[in-house]
């Protein structure tokens, strides 16, 4: 199969961080690329977990920190266990993040539109408000996309559809989604003035806060995490709910978990007086390499969330950085293929090897199976209550003679809802995985 006869060198399906990064890279190298997005404008169907970690954007937008619509840089990071009446948290904040930025809060309606326009400026053909119905195949080789019965052809198609990749699923390139590779994400954007946010979170200027929570107060075996990020003049507050546990419980509504989080005694004062501007929901990819599809084949590659490139260890949730990185690597592979005029599975296989050498697959392979630990009973049902009891024991003064610290801790451990031996094993397993 050789180029020249197709309408485009490459068609990219989806103008999110993965797709637009791929399109910028391709167009900048002189390739003839079509970027198709079903939302109009781009980003108007996207929901982010909130933080763009790392510096991946530098690869496609060299002066990205100056020109990208970023909200606040993360200076204050927190991980907390919530019980009905308590909060146990580890807070980390450092001025070092002012000089060495580790991540920014973002809102996707702005970010995705910006990146799609960058792709257009670089020379990509951007079409929005167009839903790709299916892939066009010839002799088992992907050679374009079909929309409303019309086929547009390309030598390579990069699928960057996000967490619910209908085109890839319909074409059989990805297994249908299941409980094990997806969680339900629900988010609210709450408007607060810049000053109020700075006061409530003890921030200055453009510094921001990113908090992750274990919702240890949920009942009936329901497990969910929470997050709260500061934007310039709003908060992104949300929950990520485990589907298998919600299913097993069978009587809790996902949207009620969101509201319960908002009303927690140590969450509600932070959002108080704020006006909810938007309610949104999105699936969160969970399975990592365990549910990863074939990343490439004859005439196609899969990038970003569509490939399951997200990472969470409970302390950070990452995805947009992997999306950008994989989009760039897919573009680089396509550029090589265009030079060689070969678009077979073999020609595109270097996409996989590039990913294996990059942070994307190194992280996902190293932390394989971590999602099972993030959702474990230890984290969601045992640790929150146990930590609450231990700390209450340490800090509660009732005038009776003090116990040794070790005794208070041991008492907290033996009073927990998990057997001591099991607890030690689970904790050990957890630490090893992390």
């Amino acid at each position: 199969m050789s180029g020249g006869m197709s309408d485009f060198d490459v068609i990219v399906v989806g103008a999110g961080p993965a797709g637009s990064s791929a399109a910028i890279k391709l167009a900048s190298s002189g390739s003839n690329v079509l970027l198709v997005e079903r939302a109009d404008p781009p980003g108007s169907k996207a929901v982010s977990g909130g933080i763009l970690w790392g510096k991946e954007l530098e690869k496609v937008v060299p002066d990205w920190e100056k020109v990208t619509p970023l909200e606040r840089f993360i200076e204050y990071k927190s991980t907390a266990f919530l019980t009905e009446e308590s909060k146990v948290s580890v807070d980390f904040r450092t001025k070092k993040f002012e000089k060495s930025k580790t991540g920014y809060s973002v809102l996707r309606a702005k970010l995705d539109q910006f990146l799609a326009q960058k792709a257009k400026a670089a020379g990509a053909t951007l079409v929005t408000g167009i839903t790709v119905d299916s892939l066009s195949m010839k002799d088992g080789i992907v050679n374009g996309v079909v929309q409303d019965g019309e086929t547009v052809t390309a030598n390579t198609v990069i699928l960057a559809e996000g967490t619910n990749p209908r085109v890839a699923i319909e074409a059989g390139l990805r297994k249908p989604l299941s409980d094990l590779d997806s969680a339900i994400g629900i988010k609210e954007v709450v408007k607060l003035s810049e000053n109020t946010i700075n006061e409530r979170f003890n921030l200055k200027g453009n510094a921001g806060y990113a908090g992750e929570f274990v919702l240890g107060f949920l009942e009936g075996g329901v497990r969910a995490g929470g997050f709260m990020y500061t934007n310039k003049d709003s908060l992104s507050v949300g929950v990520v709910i485990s589907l298998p546990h919600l299913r097993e419980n069978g009587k809790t509504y996902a949207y009620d978990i969101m509201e319960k989080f908002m009303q927690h005694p140590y969450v509600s004062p932070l959002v108080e007086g704020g006006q909810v501007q938007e309610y949104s929901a999105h699936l969160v990819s969970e399975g990592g390499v365990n549910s990863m599809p074939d990343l490439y084949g004859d005439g196609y590659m899969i990038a970003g969330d569509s490939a399951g490139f997200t990472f969470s260890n409970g302390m950070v949730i990452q995805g947009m950085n992997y999306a950008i990185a994989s989009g760039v690597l897919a573009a680089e592979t396509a550029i090589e293929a265009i030079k060689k005029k070969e678009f077979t599975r073999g020609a595109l296989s270097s996409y996989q090897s590039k990913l294996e050498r990059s942070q994307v697959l190194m992280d996902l392979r190293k932390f394989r199976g971590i999602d099972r630990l993030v959702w474990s009973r230890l984290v969601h049902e045992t640790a929150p209550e146990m930590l609450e009891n231990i700390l209450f024991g340490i800090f509660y003064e009732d005038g009776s003679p003090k116990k040794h610290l070790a005794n208070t801790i041991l008492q907290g451990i033996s009073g927990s809802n998990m057997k001591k031996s099991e607890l030690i094993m689970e904790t050990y397993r957890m630490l090893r995985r992390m």
Partner: protein
Amino acid sequence: MQVEEKLALLNYKTDPAYAHITIDESICETCPDHFCTFGCPAKCYTIIDGRINFKYEDCVECGTCVIACAHGSVKWTNPKGGQGIKYKFG
């Protein structure tokens, strides 16, 4: 805040001619769990008089229901070009 009030904040460009999600009511009739009603964050699935009532108009296109339904009733497609949910913040 009720979820209905939250959903009322959203903008949609509803496609009156095309329901991007369809359900097979004959399957829903014998469904033992109705987990779609618990999973869907946009309350598109409710039970009225013991039967599943589904409306695609409030759908935020998350994809939860197609996973939530373990009985194969839900058929999920993307809305046609540019229609459906339109977030301002994302």
